[in-house]
């Protein structure tokens, strides 16, 4: 029995079924986890721009930061196991996964840049400098990632429905 004799599997491979959304979610979670990791390694540990805690944080800020940190820690591991599972089942859709990756990374960057840095003032990008340029480049980078991710995701979805239209006359 190969996948072509199984309509459900064939549909799945084109991303309209479970594995399409699984590829997307695995990508989104990995994007979030990846960006959190980059944030920790580059800005906290290597550059020492970010502070562990700058002592001016509100309670709500601490909670939001803690939840996002724990979530992204979990997400980075879970998304890689999901990726391995998709590959094992040969139902990974790479464009959808990459679309998800960029969307997740952009979302994290923007959330961190706008909600954490600006609204909640958990910590700033860097201390003792004029923040304007830093904030703008941080958030523009996030927005570009997010937009690219959304565009890629939509395009991969369209491609799949086009393929599906070629393959069968349904819908």
């Amino acid at each position: 029995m190969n996948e072509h004799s199984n309509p459900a599997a064939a549909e799945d491979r084109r991303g309209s079924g479970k594995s399409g959304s699984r590829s997307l979610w695995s990508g989104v979670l990995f994007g979030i986890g990846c960006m959190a990791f980059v944030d920790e390694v580059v800005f906290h540990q290597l550059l020492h721009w970010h502070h562990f805690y700058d002592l001016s944080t509100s309670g709500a800020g601490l909670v939001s930061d803690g939840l996002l940190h724990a979530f992204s820690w979990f997400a980075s591991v879970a998304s890689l196991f999901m990726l391995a599972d998709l590959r094992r089942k040969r139902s990974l859709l790479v464009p959808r996964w990459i679309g998800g990756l960029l969307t997740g990374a952009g979302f994290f960057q923007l959330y961190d840049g706008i909600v954490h840095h600006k609204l909640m003032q958990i910590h700033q990008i860097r201390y003792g400098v004029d923040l304007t340029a830093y904030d703008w480049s941080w958030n523009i980078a996030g927005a570009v990632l997010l937009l690219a991710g959304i565009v890629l995701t939509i395009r991969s979805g369209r491609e799949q429905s086009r393929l599906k239209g070629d393959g069968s006359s349904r819908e």
Partner: protein
Amino acid sequence: MVLPVNSLRIESYVRLAHAHGSMENVQGSFGGIAEWTAPLLLAVPLMAAYLLAAALTGRRYRRWPPLRSSLWCMGVLLSSAAVLGPLAAAAHGSFTAHMLGHLLLGMLGPLLIVLSAPVTLLLRSLPRESARLLTGLLRSRLAAWLSHPVTAALLNVGGLWLLYATDLYAAMHHFAALNALVHVHVFAAGWLFTASVFPVDPAPHRTGMRFRAAVMIAAFAAHGILGKFLYANPPAGTLPEDARSGAQLMYYGGDAVDLLLIILFCRRWYRSAGREIPASGSDLPKKERTASVRKSAKRGIHS
């Protein structure tokens, strides 16, 4: 209980000032081999009991996996190192040393012990009647309530908040009985929490995987938030410098143990998802599929 909290605090500061540069003191006292016999006095009987049970029951049942035995030994050694001996002594003067002890006693030790499946071994070792009694106990409503992930997480991380965000931490260094009680609680709650989100022993009241993942994330977050809170608000009787390094150890060390638990949790999901492969949409050859199913069944938890 009315605590002379203020005088307690001052006393602790004086004590700390004497033990200035507490981590240096810790390193100084780590040298003596003789001092490490204290934790061994606690650990060796526990290790011997486990190994004996494994060997004896191995005659009647399947051979007990040596990996589980070594996990038990490591877990017991690390946990007892936090309670007795040089590290425990250093924890009296240094918050950082105390936090290292907490990571061992409340997180890494319990994780290793959960992985060693001691309740399963106990069930194998007990006479039939007592084993039935124990199973009944595990099935009871009280056990269901206690082993619920939310209860376990509250007892575990909630207990830590209570310990460090109140004067309990300072009081603990003044009353030996309270000190012992706190250690027992930290260990028991750590075990309970780990077993509730990642059960290896029989868990008749197991909750769903997504639910457990959500509780894990919330509990990890509460642990990390406490770390940051302590960075800014040193527990009574702790010097700010010491509190900061201890808080960071709590945050990053906690992340490291959490990572182990997350990997184990996800690997278990990955294996169970693998068992479903033959159901639909797989192009693995049939032979390979059945082989993988057989293998994972063989690798069952209660072997």
